[in-house]
């Protein structure tokens, strides 16, 4: 999904209220998405940009990050999105210089049509370059059989792929620009 598509998706929601549905029911098929990008810069330089759980502002859809607990397990953050929408997340695992794993504890399906979402963002050195991998596991946003198209498995996968692709491409541009 293009950045415009992502913004459009987020604009489609007007609910600023965050629905809480952590352990809600879900369909029987969990989805997975993995996206990668190769960046022409050492892994340390990439980690310097993505390595703080309290700062996800490198992603073009994130307007601001506020949170508590730094990079310790159990730390939380609230992502405020452009132009609107909020995602609340908790840090599950932190491996300095390498990876961070987190889950969404609250998001409206109109912001992101997923439930029971967990994710790992990692960077690995590859010669003088680095490869960033972003993986997620989640169920679709609709919790029962026969979902409406906007809350289907395909819609969930498409949305997450869009978020990942736009984020990784922006990350590559930012790091390679030598910021």
């Amino acid at each position, binding site marked *: 999904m293009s950045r415009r598509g992502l913004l459009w998706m987020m604009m489609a929601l007007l609910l600023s209220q965050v629905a809480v549905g952590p*352990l809600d*029911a879900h*369909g*029987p*098929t*969990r*989805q*997975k998405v993995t996206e990668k990008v190769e960046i022409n810069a050492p892994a340390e330089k990439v980690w310097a940009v993505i390595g703080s759980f309290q700062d996800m502002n490198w992603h073009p859809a994130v307007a601001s990050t506020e949170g508590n607990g730094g990079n310790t397990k159990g730390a939380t953050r609230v992502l405020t999105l452009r132009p609107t929408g909020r995602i609340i997340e908790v840090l*599950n695992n932190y491996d300095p210089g390498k990876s961070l794993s987190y*889950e969404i504890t609250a998001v409206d399906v109109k912001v992101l049509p997923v439930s029971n979402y*967990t994710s*790992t963002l990692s960077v690995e050195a590859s010669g003088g370059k680095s490869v960033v991998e972003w*993986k997620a*596991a989640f169920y679709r946003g609709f919790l*029962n*059989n026969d979902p409406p198209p906007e809350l289907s498995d395909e819609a969930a996968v498409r949305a997450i792929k869009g978020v990942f692709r736009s984020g990784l491409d922006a990350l590559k541009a930012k790091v390679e620009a030598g910021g």
Partner: protein
Amino acid sequence: MTTVRGVRAGRLGVGSGLALVTIWATAMAMAQTAPLPVAPKLAEAGEALITNQTGDSLSVVRLSDFKVVAELAIDGKPAGIALSPDRRTAYVTSPEGKVVTIIDAISRKATGRFPAGKGPLGIAVNPVGGRVYVADWYQHKIMAHEPVTGRLVGEKSVGQSPSGLAVTPDGKHVLSADRDSNQVTILDADTLDLIGTVAVGERPFGVTVSADGRRAYTANVGSNDVSVIEVPAWSLIGTVPVGRRPYAVAIAQGRAFVSDQYAATVTVFDVATLAVVKIIPVGDYPEGMAADAAGRNIYVACWSANTLERIDAATLEVTGKVAVGDGPRAFGDFIR
């Protein structure tokens, strides 16, 4: 750790109603007119049959050298699995396809399939007589099917979103983990009459009955613990905290092994004292678990890592990993 693609069964088109009817009718006809011919012996026992939900396939892993020896295509997002009493026939649920596929484990071929409600996930086979029970996640009921033909012989409403199923070794009772009712329902395996319910932890997913038939264990995804149930008193006798989002339980050598999805660990506890003895790191999103017949090893399918991992039940060390298909779940009884 390369995936060897061996026997690949023809893809059964769930989308094609005609194909489905034809296949089913063929299976029915075979069952009604003649016993199944004895297949040439291609596969020995000592295998793990791993449902790969994302990848729409079944990986066959030979346990002796821990290698993938075949991969069969099964569409409809296969997840649950159970084996016939003689361990020669596997029944695999496809929740998206809304069918159960019957697989001859000897020839490694899909031999038929039958429709099963709106969201078949958990599945179990009665070790006495071979009747097949399927949990319908969306319609909140348990369906009983005849072996081989898959003919529906009965159904019974249970709690919300039944997930894991287990049958007691004497073949008398079916247990259903009713995920969204925080309970286990016990049914008479023959009549499907309600025997009772037991309140357990939050969101029970997998349910396992011990080989001696005296205990049942549920992995509670919501409360991050395991409920221990005494059978046949059907009373809750203990709760064991485990890692985050536990999925399934396997028993061997007096210990319970629990797959903790979010923690990417297997928590091991002593079934007598209920004390945790070890937490073993495994691949991401460990899910289906089972012990081999001798109780020597525990096998766990890691959904995100795309691996099957082997844990020595005595030393509690991971002794092997093998790459399987995409998104392995192996939810149920998968070792033959």
